[in-house]
């Protein structure tokens, strides 16, 4: 591809992303309908569940992994969050645990 073609593809991906961000604000400009307000309150917790599944949509993350590192690191991540309730500790701890597992053990 030429640099221009690459730029066009990047621009279109950016445009699509911005459409997904602006659309609700453009559609419901004056007053938010009650049903949309309701969705706004109940949707987030469903979204987090959805995104957790989304992360593992292709099975194991690392090449050659049998899934064990993913399961173990997820358990560590969940336990850290439930215990410490500190996102920074949870994310760093879970990721470092996973890195150690795929680099040294599996």
């Amino acid at each position, binding site marked *: 591809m030429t640099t221009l*073609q690459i730029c066009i593809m990047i621009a279109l991906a950016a445009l699509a*992303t911005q459409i997904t961000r602006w659309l609700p604000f453009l559609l419901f400009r004056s007053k938010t309908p009650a049903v949309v307000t309701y969705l706004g309150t109940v*949707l987030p917790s469903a979204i987090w*569940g*959805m995104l*957790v599944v989304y992360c593992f949509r292709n099975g194991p*993350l*690392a090449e050659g992994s049998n899934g064990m590192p993913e399961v173990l690191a*997820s358990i560590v991540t969940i336990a850290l969050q439930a215990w410490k309730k500190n996102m920074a500790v949870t*994310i760093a701890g879970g990721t470092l645990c996973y890195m150690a597992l795929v680099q040294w053990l599996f």
Partner: protein
Amino acid sequence: MSVKLAAASARAAFRATVPILIGFGFCGFSYGLYMHSLGFEPIFPIVMTLTILAGSLEFIMASMITGPFAPLTAFLVGLLVNARHLFYGIAMLDRYRDTGAMKPFLIYGLIDETFSILGRGEVPEGADRRWYYFFVTLFNESYWVLSTAFGAVFGADLPLDTRGIEFVLPALFLAIFVSSWQQERQHVGSLAGLGITLCCLLAFGSTYFLLAAMTFIIVLLLLFRKKLSSITGTVS
């Protein structure tokens, strides 16, 4: 007074975004490194980060622009992968309503991680709500752009084994999921999101399941609106 309030809000926003700084430090760095390994000058990941500003799509686009010219696919994949932002927008409609001149920037920068903080709805004591929104959005974007640039420019020179760094994304969402689980009085929403998406993944495969899952989640939440409104205490 206003400057003081803005400064207090910036400090509160920084404290709230420290986990994102760590997560993005990892993730943006690996993205910059990845683009470098594909043979792109640092300007490409930096421009992509500023314009697309959506991590998962940036990774997807990185591999797409090494292939054939496919503008329509780029556009549709962008819509599909980021359709979840529609949910964020809906959740933030009323909170962003009175943000005035900041509003275009807040909407442009409403990424997963910013929503993960502002979507919880709490504003720290001593912070101004609108300045807090502004700084959380600004800080998160800066972390992502700067760490990407750092990875693209210096990544190849660092003697680091970064294998396994991709777990940062699941770790982030697991952390948010667990913390949201602990705060809610009933878990219908969390379980529905998890269960429906899993069923859709098994039924439709990893390319199309997200669209189906989002449709089913919305339909189900609408069908049980009366019931869920009464347990969550939502006025509807």
